[in-house]
């Protein structure tokens, strides 16, 4: 059989499906890159300010390692790539790896591939077309960024190197996903393997740069990409190394796909337990089905809270920096703009950053509600006395508790590690935990809106809940400074939380209002679910 048979047709189909997905990733990549340039321009307007920043950053290993490399230089282009690089590499890598899994394993899971493969479609057609999509998305992300960076007046050579590094990130993790799609037996496993590889790559790179143990950076794919160092060294040969590694990964993926059976993986299916005496109700079912998701989130949150505490050790040195932007930042998080003690404001900003990320967890849990219904599994459950309202309530219960647990964990780890690193335990530990927990109702509110959307228009529930999440993140206090709105906007729930860390009074009415609002939305959702047709 011709090894390319059917590829063109499958690729065309994949590109068509991608039309509604890729633009959002590209928008995020280019938008974030440009936002970072204007952020640097606003806050480090003169070479001397830039130099002061560079000096402060170089003095703190935890902070310096955020953007990669062993030191930073006072250069506009370098500083933008240093600040935005980590995000853009990550975003492009995720866009590419999700695309590869979407057009390989996910289709195979749905049985679509089996149908196609019975026609004149080769064993490699799906993999090839998925890789074409991922490569195109990565290439466009890199090219658009390079053009945008040149457009705002940055060095053309450096900008092209930066774009190339972004493309390389997509290609590396796209090819890792191609291998993972052969190994895992289903899309979820393939995604988990690749995202795990991404997380490890990121952590190794960070740990290597922060500790000076360069070998950790060198064994990490993220390390290779950061090693391009655009606007400083522009190491083109690093791109050649990456291309070689991509070629090896692709060869492995094709070899494996040539040997494995359709629908099978290399990881054998584990056997389950024969009985489940404790699986007796909706909450138990929800926990049993989604505990893996929670565990991954708990591990991720914990690890990044340790990292955030490490980065936070730079805060006491901030006194050396010009006060303008930090004053604004501090005002944004509830200060008067003049206080010399930035620590409490930094910790609160850190918690809010975590809050936006943790809010993704309830969004995913609501999306799973929809997936359960669409797959027909919920119908099996709904034929028992566990009717849809109780079934959904179980999921909401687990989601609410899981979200609260993630916030508690963040507060605990961040507060404890910060105290540990600055040698002043317990330090702000208690206040950090309380502040973290104060964010819980706002995250519940995001989940409640998503749930109401699920109950009313199941088909649009997933895009609506993501839109709600993006709304709170973009209009929040964390993203605000990127577009010069210090302190965010009052259009999202986290805005109303007082910074109790810095001594603002605790506000029971804010908490209560948010909880009541969330409860009302959930009740409305349950009622709507009760009254609509259920099933696929």
């Amino acid at each position, binding site marked *: 059989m011709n090894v390319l048979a059917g590829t063109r047709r499958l690729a065309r189909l994949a590109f068509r499906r991608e039309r509604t997905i890729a633009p959002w990733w590209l928008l995020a990549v280019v938008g974030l890159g440009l936002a970072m340039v204007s952020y640097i321009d606003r806050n480090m307007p003169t070479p001397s300010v830039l130099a002061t920043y560079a000096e402060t950053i170089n003095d703190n290993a935890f902070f310096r390692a955020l953007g990669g490399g062993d030191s930073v230089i006072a250069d506009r282009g370098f500083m933008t790539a240093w600040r935005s690089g980590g995000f853009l590499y990550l975003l492009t890598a995720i866009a590419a790896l999700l695309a590869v899994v979407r057009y390989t394993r996910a289709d195979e899971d749905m049985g679509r591939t089996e149908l196609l493969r019975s026609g004149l479609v080769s064993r490699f057609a799906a993999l090839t077309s998925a890789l074409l999509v991922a490569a195109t998305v990565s290439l466009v992300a890199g090219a658009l960024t390079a053009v945008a960076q040149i457009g705002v007046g940055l060095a053309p050579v450096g900008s092209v190197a930066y774009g190339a590094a972004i493309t390389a990130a997509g290609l590396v993790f796209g090819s890792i996903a191609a291998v993972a799609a052969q190994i895992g037996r289903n899309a979820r496993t393939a995604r988990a393997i690749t995202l795990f590889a991404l997380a490890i790559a990121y952590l190794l790179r960070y740990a290597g740069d922060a500790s000076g143990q360069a070998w950790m950076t060198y064994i990490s794919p993220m390390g290779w990409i950061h090693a391009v160092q655009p606007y400083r060294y522009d190491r083109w040969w690093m791109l050649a190394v990456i291309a070689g590694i991509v070629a090896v990964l692709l060869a492995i993926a094709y070899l494996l796909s040539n040997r494995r059976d359709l629908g099978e993986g290399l990881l054998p*299916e584990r*056997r389950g337990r024969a009985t*489940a005496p404790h699986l007796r109700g909706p909450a138990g079912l929800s926990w*049993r*089905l989604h505990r893996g998701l929670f565990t991954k989130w708990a591990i991720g949150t914990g690890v990044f809270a340790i990292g955030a505490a490490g980065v936070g050790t730079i805060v006491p040195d901030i006194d050396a920096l010009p006060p303008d932007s930090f004053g604004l930042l501090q005002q944004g998080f509830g200060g008067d703009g003049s206080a010399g003690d930035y620590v409490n404001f930094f910790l609160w900003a850190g918690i809010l950053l975590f809050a936006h990320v943790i809010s993704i967890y309830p969004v995913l849990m609501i999306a799973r509600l929809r997936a359960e219904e669409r797959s027909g599994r919920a119908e099996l459950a709904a034929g028992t*006395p566990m009717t849809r309202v109780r079934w959904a309530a179980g999921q909401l219960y687990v989601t609410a508790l899981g979200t609260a647990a993630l916030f508690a964990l963040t507060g605990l780890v961040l507060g404890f590690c910060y105290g540990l690193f600055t040698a002043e335990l317990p330090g702000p530990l208690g206040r950090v935990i309380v502040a973290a927990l104060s964010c819980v109702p706002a995250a519940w509110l995001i989940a409640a809106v998503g749930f109401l959307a699920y109950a009313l228009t199941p088909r649009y529930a997933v895009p609506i809940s993501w839109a709600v999440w993006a709304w709170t993140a973009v209009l929040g206090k964390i993203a605000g400074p990127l577009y010069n709105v210090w302190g965010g906007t009052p259009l999202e729930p986290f805005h109303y939380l007082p910074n109790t860390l810095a001594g603002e009074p605790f506000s029971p009415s804010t908490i209560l209002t948010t909880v009541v609002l969330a409860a009302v939305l959930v009740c409305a959702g349950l009622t709507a679910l009760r009254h609509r047709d259920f099933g696929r």
Partner: protein
Amino acid sequence: MTDPVSVSGLVKTFGTTRALDGLDLSVKPGEVHGFLGPNGAGKSTTIRILLGLLHADAGTVRLLGGDPWRDATELHRRMAYVPGDVTLWPGLSGGEVIDLLLQVRGGRVNTSRRDELIERFDLDPRTKGRAYSKGNRQKVALIAALASDVELLILDEPTSGLDPLMEIVFREVVREEQEHNGRTVLLSSHILAEVEALCERVTIIRDGRTVDTGSLAEMRYLTRTSIRAELSGPVAGLADLEGVHDLRIDGGTGDDTVVNFDVDAAALGSALRFLDSQGVRALTSSPPTLEELFLRHYGGTTEAAR
């Protein structure tokens, strides 16, 4: 005692599709009731309404004396369901799914009954949902339903994908359920032999409407019998006889005549008397096969039965 299932004038539309259009169905206590109809006739839709998953647009629906939309939780304690398309949770083993479906009913689970059914259906309860074959997925849902201590079983094509051996086990178990435990079963099926073996009464629907309901014996009686006869001489006048259809006359050996025709049950006597008067030498009569019976209803014309 009220009928466990009683439906009349049921209407359900999906957008512009009218899936159910005045459907009637009644299932008597303790019977196994066959629910038949061509693909897309509305069987699964009716069943989903009976489960309170879909809301009826018009008509009355009573399930175990209650309203399935309003009293779903209470009613589901007293019934069990096997969906037409069984999808299992990929990460849960068959044993876990069975336990889950049994335990959410509350009360004590009859574990010996569960184990006996797992044994009889030859299921490996430790396999994960995603690794089961189609037939084995079906068995998981079937075992969970059959092991529940309930009055009513609603089974939507429960044996699709089962091998012939398992089909026999299924029939045995359903018969036991009905005989020893007095359970009522609503069985939607495309397997006519299964319907013939299990069901006292059947309801046939087409395009969302009930086209026939009653016992199989009655239905047979009301349908035409096929006759093949060899007569010693030429035949005349048979075609004019009331109730005779699709007559074919062939010349036999010598001056014999062979006639083939269908005759309505009510006209069978007069047709036989007529043949007798014509000097019948050999006669074979075949009652309509179940296939013919259903094909007539499904296709809506006698021609479809040929």
